[in-house]
């Protein structure tokens, strides 16, 4: 029989988690109550459907909003503006009434949602807000196509909702709306080139990063800081890489990329947030490689470079994993 099929016959040290719990109880390391509770958890008694129900709710909200948006886009003329706006406004009003009437008192610290449905009702309201705003501008041209103002207003509104109701979904919507505002604003400029987008991306990083740091230092929803940091890191690395890929004047961007990689690596190692180590390794490798093999035509040198650097990266990462990254 295979080793995995009958482990207990082949390995006397083999202990399932239930046997271990029994052993720890006998040792007195855990109390009988703890043993009973943890053993029943291991046996799936009770079995939690928390994650599955949340995923179902999320998928439901998403499918509903997709269908709503599609229906409004397709049938708005037949339905008429009044009916469309009435339906959208009614959904919006019900969602926000539900959230504001049931939300706990605001607190600087992390606040759990009053119910499982709460976060999804808020998310539904936020997405329906977007559809209604889009419909209003599309039909009535209230701001004469100035979409950047809508995006800025939406971002501000979503930031308010995210902080009022302590919701990461809506915080991400706010951050993406703000990024959209930056992007759309540039598209109105007479000559919007890559460099303009890059500068705006850096400005976005600066603004969001500083905002995140400031709020964290003041203790305002400090658990949001990770979301800010991850978004800022990715936008920053993309912006710097786009500068490194330039044919001219790329050295300053390359230097900035190295600095950013160093900072990301240091942050990741000291805070044990290994996503930042991964960012530094991947973005840094792409940037350095693009500089070093630029203009090379000899396949042997290029391939040799990849063999050598991949091995070097592996050695460095294994050392990092040994010293810092053992725990899951």
């Amino acid at each position, binding site marked *: 029989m295979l080793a*995995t*099929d009958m*482990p207990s016959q082949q*390995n006397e040290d*083999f*202990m*399932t*988690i*239930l046997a*271990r719990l029994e052993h720890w109880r006998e040792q007195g390391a855990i109390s009988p109550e*703890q043993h009973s509770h943890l053993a029943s958890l291991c046996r799936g*008694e*009770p*079995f*939690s*459907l928390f994650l599955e*129900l949340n995923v179902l709710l999320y*998928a*439901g*909200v998403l499918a509903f909003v*997709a*269908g*709503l*948006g*599609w229906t409004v*886009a*397709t049938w*708005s*003329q037949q339905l008429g503006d009044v009916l469309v706006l009435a339906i959208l406004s009614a959904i919006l009003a019900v969602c926000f009434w539900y959230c504001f009437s049931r939300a706990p008192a605001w607190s600087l610290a992390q606040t759990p949602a009053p119910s499982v449905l709460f976060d999804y009702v808020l998310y539904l309201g936020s*997405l329906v807000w977007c559809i209604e705003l*889009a419909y209003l501008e599309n039909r009535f041209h209230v701001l004469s196509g100035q*979409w950047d103002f809508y*995006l800025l207003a*939406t971002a501000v509104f979503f930031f308010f909702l995210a902080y009022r109701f302590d919701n*990461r*979904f809506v*915080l*991400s*919507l706010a951050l*993406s709306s703000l*990024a959209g505002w930056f*992007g*759309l604003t540039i*598209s109105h400029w007479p000559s919007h080139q890559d460099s303009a987008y890059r500068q705006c991306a850096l400005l976005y990083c600066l603004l969001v990063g500083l905002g995140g740091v400031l709020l964290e230092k003041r203790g305002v929803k400090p658990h949001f800081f990770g*979301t800010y940091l991850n*978004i800022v890191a990715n936008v920053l690395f993309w912006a710097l890489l786009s500068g490194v890929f330039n044919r001219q004047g790329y050295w300053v961007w390359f230097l900035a990329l190295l600095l950013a990689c160093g900072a990301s690596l240091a942050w990741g190692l000291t805070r044990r947030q*290994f*996503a930042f180590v991964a960012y530094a390794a*991947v973005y840094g490798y792409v940037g350095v490689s693009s500089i070093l093999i630029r203009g090379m035509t000899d396949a*042997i040198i290029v*391939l*040799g470079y*990849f063999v050598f650097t*991949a091995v070097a990266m*592996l050695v460095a*990462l294994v050392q*990092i*994993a040994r010293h810092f990254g*053992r725990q*899951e």
Partner: protein
Amino acid sequence: MRLYDASSEETLRARKLLADWAGEGMLTQQQYRRLEQETVSELRTTNIFLRLILFLFTVIGVGAAAALFFVVFLSSPSEQGIGIFLLIFAVLCYAAAEVAVSQARLYRYGIEEALAVCSVAFLCAGMQAAFFRVAPYSPKPNGFQFLVPAAGAVFSLWIWRRFGFWYAFLAAMVFAVFLPGYWTSSHSAQHMIVALFYAIGLIAVAAVRSRHHFDCVEDDYSLVEALLWLGIYLAINLQLSSLDLGARLWGGSRAASEFARPFYWTTWVLIWVLPPVVLARGVRQKDRFVIAVGAIVAVLTLVTNKPYLGWPRHTWDPALLGILLTGVAWFIRRWLARGPGGIRGGFTAARLSGKDKQWLNASSAVLGLVTPQSITPSPQATNADVHFGGGASGGGGAGGDF
């Protein structure tokens, strides 16, 4: 057969559970520190981020080394020569993966995983180049060309058994999909053969799994069983197992005439029968993966039913589906919550593990960024002057192409 000692894997599992329980306050920090000392494993593991980048750089290194070998030593090689060397690389990669585990005791470390994956890729490419000169899936394939995906499937299964990589099992399932194409041109027969492969696998896995309770091996088999259920469903759902899936789902139905009528309608019955069977199995076993697959195939049945019957789609169909999903989730949650202690039939809607919260927090941040772009489908051409959708600029769907 397995490279890892069962007790080492079980120790690692116990260590993770301890961390989870301590995080949830079910153990004191003092208890956690003490028990942590008793769950020290000799296996060398790392976190998911380092694992991913170690995998990436190993693939880059191995791929570049193989290419460098061909460039330096084989200036104008024959196809067979390339194939033979690729087979040698497959052996070398596999041997290196074995050494990485047996000597360095790597466990889900990225490096040994990449080496094993590269060995499968080199094996298939090498066999193709060395023994079969005709391009794959050409109109006149070599009679024995099916040996390439067959070898890929068998070797992937071996790697799954030896190393325990679930994605190797998935790769074996994918290789199995290509096999019937070499044996018969009948699409119906191809679907049946693939479903039969998976059904045999399912019976075998269910038989072996029944001997394991509450150990780490059971978790592995749970995922594999879920994959097999999903595979069977995808093989029998004729609306999904097609390359032009998007066009079929949104543009119209797959012509029933493409298949024999009895076969077509039998598969329609089966796509309605399978979801409750899978869900019942998952609930009975209290198996998270199988329950998830049951829910997924139930949604897929609802999504593909209209194309199956040849009925037209409506723009409000997704909204109705959304209401149904939300309603089901809300009803189950309330029904469970009203049970004594919030428990009914051994199930609860309450959160019992810190991992669930971590998953939700991470996914909410990521999905909040990506969903605005995906929720608004492109408008239909029939209403040219009412044109909104896309949300390309990311602002919660309030995008630029209104």
